[in-house]
């Protein structure tokens, strides 16, 4: 049973560049959420997508944007990267209305 798949697993970018992270949800799941986890911290909610629309958003600037495709997979885009964007980015999928979430193993983004 394929769980949540994230790609790439590691990424190094230069300050000012743009990055796209990808997430394939668990089979049967239709909702995707993205979280940013800085080193030594708990994950912070970025946004949630359902039916290809952003349903809820956390306290992140507009440099962070996303997309959900008809097959429920999702992308997280970050523009004008800052050193402070270095973090582990986690994707979590769920079925709308259900209580449970399945997390991927994340993408480790390093901005230099």
């Amino acid at each position, binding site marked *: 049973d394929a769980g949540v798949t994230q790609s790439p697993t590691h990424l190094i970018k230069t300050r000012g560049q743009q990055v796209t992270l990808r997430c394939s949800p668990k089979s049967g799941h239709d*909702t995707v*959420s993205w*979280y940013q986890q800085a080193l*030594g*911290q*708990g*994950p*912070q*909610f970025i946004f*949630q997508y359902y039916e290809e629309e952003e*349903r*809820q958003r*956390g306290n992140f600037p507009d440099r962070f944007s996303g997309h959900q495709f008809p097959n429920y997979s999702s992308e997280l885009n970050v523009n004008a990267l800052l050193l402070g964007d270095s973090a*582990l980015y*986690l994707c*979590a999928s*769920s079925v*709308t209305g259900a*209580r*449970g*979430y399945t*997390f*991927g*193993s*994340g993408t*480790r983004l390093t901005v230099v």
Partner: protein
Amino acid sequence: AQTVTQSQPEMSVQEAETVTLSCTYDTSESDYYLFWYKQPPSRQMILVIRQEAYKQQNATENRFSVNFQKAAKSFSLKISDSQLGDAAMYFCAYRSAYGKLTFGTGTRLQVTL
């Protein structure tokens, strides 16, 4: 806005012993869910146990149980018969009505022989 507080950055327990991890939260909502997640070095968040706020009975999953005190907004995790494989970061999380998870800062659990 909801907040989740974990006041124990690190805890240590001997193998086969029992340990309790603390979590408090703040919310004005009446209907919500609480979770404990385990994050090993592999980085994937693994669900340990969940509690529905409307249920008075404390949740139990094998060696893991919670002490849910709704009035005090407290949600502690008890791990019995600790095993080496339990060593990891543990995060307490609150789920709002719209599905957003709010996490605490985590507790690193070490298990010693």
